[in-house]
């Protein structure tokens, strides 16, 4: 019997922000998918008229999880317009802030947001050991069950009914790590605050460096925090993902995108050169340098008026559709359906994020540590880069990157010179343009700034990682990256479409960023 169903999930929890997705399913296979970003604020064009330095503080508030990346990109864009680079201390402190926050973000994503897509949380009731975290959790669950509340065990209740890990030890190990992850995040937030002033939303990253002057004490404090996190990353986080990958091996073949990747160079040395991760593109398996001139954005299926195929900074106004128009688009067969725009590279739909960074850097052979770690992991799991284009490949890539980044932080902290300024002041450039490129947790991030004759912002543009990944169809009707990943997926139980949730969460969507 030919069964046709439409499944709409709204909201998808345990991601950043507001996402709805709708899929058409025929004979248990997804034949069509639409991802709808459900939030709009309009920050980039609202910046017009504000001081150029305001961009750093405001754009980092687009996102509570990748704020550091926007702060860095905005500072880079203004530095590009100024024609300057930070001094050595400035660059090092910037690396130390963004690197620590990025690792925080990987742990946040894997443990808080994703781990219960694979791990059976109910296993806790069968725990018989003496681990204090697990005993505490078990006692709590038991008392909740007896409590007679309407929502017992909330918020940890009702996973999709499906197959979760059958490995008792892995379940306990992962739940324990989930609880410990909060404490590791706390340490990383402190590490960010040491040079960033506070976390989230570090204030100190300005065009010209970092306003904090490091001291012997602050350097030692940072080191101590990072040492503790290092153990968690290498002895717990990476092994945890490898164990889950072994049990869910089929997820190396589920959730495949276009395999076209884009990444920007990221994490330079103290001179602002020799980046830890390389930039570039891979299209149809061919590596090339990136060319920003090829980037365009379409709005045919986005809740905006305006032209398709628009270049960055080509307009100073972004016009949202009104409520009546929104309602009429909702009932159209082929109407607009997302607040996200559709960025494209020529006509290619590009995936950004951890996999893009791993593959592109590996391809350039400039980071020996990364290549060695990738080779080792691939051998252990018996996989190739083809399998990185998958749910598990994306989780795995983040853990690999976390290992590489933390080693870099340990190296950079030793190069910081105490009591030497990390910031130099430069005049705000008037009638100037600049571009800031970096990698956020979720991938390639670009800021464009244009200033007027007084140094106020004349125009601003952001093309953000999740906009690339979660984009709706473009003007030609080509689905976005995550939509492509969903199409073709086999669903075991349409009432409990865990496969779709696993695919989307594996891309770590950040909706607040995507719509900005």
């Amino acid at each position, binding site marked *: 019997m030919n069964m046709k169903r439409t499944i709409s999930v709204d909201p998808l*929890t345990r991601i950043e922000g507001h996402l709805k997705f709708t899929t058409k399913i025929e004979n248990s296979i997804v034949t069509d998918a639409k991802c709808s970003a459900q939030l709009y*604020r309009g*920050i980039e064009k609202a910046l017009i*008229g504000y001081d150029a330095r305001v961009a750093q503080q405001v754009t980092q508030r687009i996102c*509570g999880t990748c704020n550091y990346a926007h702060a860095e990109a905005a500072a880079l864009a203004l530095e590009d317009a100024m024609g300057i680079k930070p001094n050595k201390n400035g660059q090092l402190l910037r690396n130390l802030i963004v690197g620590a926050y990025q690792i925080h973000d990987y742990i946040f994503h894997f443990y808080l947001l994703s781990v219960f897509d694979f791990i059976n949380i109910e296993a806790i009731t069968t725990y018989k050991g003496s681990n204090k975290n697990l005993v505490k959790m078990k006692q709590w669950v038991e008392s909740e069950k007896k409590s007679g509340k309407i929502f017992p065990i909330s918020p940890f209740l009702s996973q999709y009914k499906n197959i979760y890990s059958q490995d008792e030890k892995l379940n306990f190990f992962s739940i324990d790590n989930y609880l410990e992850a909060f404490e590791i995040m706390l340490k990383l937030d*402190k590490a960010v605050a040491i040079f960033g*002033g506070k976390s989230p939303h570090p204030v100190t990253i300005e065009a010209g460096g970092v306003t904090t002057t490091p001291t012997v004490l602050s350097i030692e404090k940072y080191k101590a925090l990072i040492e503790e996190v290092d153990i968690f990353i290498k002895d717990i986080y990476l092994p945890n993902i490898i164990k889950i990958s072994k049990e869910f091996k089929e997820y190396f073949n589920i959730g495949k995108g276009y395999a076209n990747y884009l990444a920007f160079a990221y994490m330079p040395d103290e001179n602002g050169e020799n980046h830890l991760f390389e930039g570039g593109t891979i299209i149809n398996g061919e590596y090339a340098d990136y060319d920003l001139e090829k980037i365009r954005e379409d709005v045919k299926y986005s809740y905006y008026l305006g032209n398709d195929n628009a270049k960055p900074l080509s307009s100073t106004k972004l016009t949202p559709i009104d409520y009546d128009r929104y309602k009429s688009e909702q009932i159209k067969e082929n109407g607009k359906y997302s607040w996200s725009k559709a960025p494209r590279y020529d006509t290619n739909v590009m995936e950004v994020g951890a996999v893009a960074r791993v593959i592109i850097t590996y391809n350039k052979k400039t980071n020996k540590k990364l290549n060695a770690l990738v080779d080792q992991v691939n051998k252990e799991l018996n996989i190739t880069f083809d399998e990185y284009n998958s749910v598990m490949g994306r989780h795995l890539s983040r853990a690999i990157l976390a290992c590489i980044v933390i080693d870099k932080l340990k190296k950079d902290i030793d190069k910081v010179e105490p009591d030497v300024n990390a910031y130099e002041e430069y005049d705000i450039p008037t009638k100037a343009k600049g571009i800031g490129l970096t990698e956020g947790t979720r991938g390639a991030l670009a800021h464009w700034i244009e200033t007027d004759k007084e140094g106020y912002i004349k125009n601003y543009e952001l093309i953000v990682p999740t906009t690339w990944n979660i984009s709706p169809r473009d003007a030609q009707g080509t689905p976005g990256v995550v939509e492509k990943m969903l199409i073709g997926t086999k669903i075991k139980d349409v009432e409990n479409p865990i496969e779709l949730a696993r695919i989307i969460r594996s891309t770590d969507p950040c909706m607040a960023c995507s719509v900005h």
Partner: protein
Amino acid sequence: MNRREALKKFYNVIVAVGASSFFTFDDLLALENSQIKKPNLIWLQGASCSGCTLSSTNIEDISFTDFILKFVNIIYHPNLTIHTGYDVQHTLNTACKELNNDYLLINEGSIPVQLPHACLLADIPYVEWIKKMAKNAHSCIGVGTCASFGGITDMHGMDTGVASIVQVLETENIQKPVAILPNCPLRPEHLVYTILYFIKFGKFPALDVYHRPKKFFSQTIHQSCSHYYEFKEDIFATKIGEKGCLLELGCQGPVTKSDCMITGLNGNTNNCIKAGHPCIGCASEHFPRQIMFRSYIDDRVITPLKKMNFAKK
């Protein structure tokens, strides 16, 4: 660790957030033995960035999970809740009926009113959810500057026409106690204190005209600043890294009320001014200002960009 030691750790938190004057060790024991009721919490996100959520995990001394298991029942939180999709709508609708007048509604982010479809949950404008959930709540808390004053979601030239939680309740004539906790992001100590006070007394601590707890928001950053002495002595920094008060670099401390300089940030690891940066006024009703960080010689005239100052319906 035995039970008493564990409780002592929790008590340290109560002391750290400044709640020990009313929340005693005996209260903690009573909570442990279910003699005091834990409040139900429903956390919703409007035009937000999850920054306040992440910030609230930065509770010193205890892990966030310990906090939520010990002090509150989280009925729904977008980043923590395991279930998804339709189950969320079901939970919210059920809570509305079954927990009438028995939950705290926490609102993160501002509430788009002029452009209602600018924030949607289950294809229903977020403002409708807030109205519905607030009507049946015991009390409401707006966390972060966006929820309190619009913040970066209420800049000049925006189309969304956002309102704060206080404004939505006023416009809709929903008479529920409401507190706001500005700062971008929310300071976890403020939230923990407010919730502990609520557990003990069933109401919010004393609030000012904006509905901010007076305990945290009666002094400006400037009044409690470590550079206050230099300000009095007319010693002003002319560039970053120089000794002196940061006023001439654009410091917003004199027009921003919060206790950042007293308790410090991230468990007193640092604060913005200590990190060499002028206060950007993130807790202020004027945030974000047109110029947040001036150089000493910057002689541009500020032409205040009018914030929309909260949409009227």
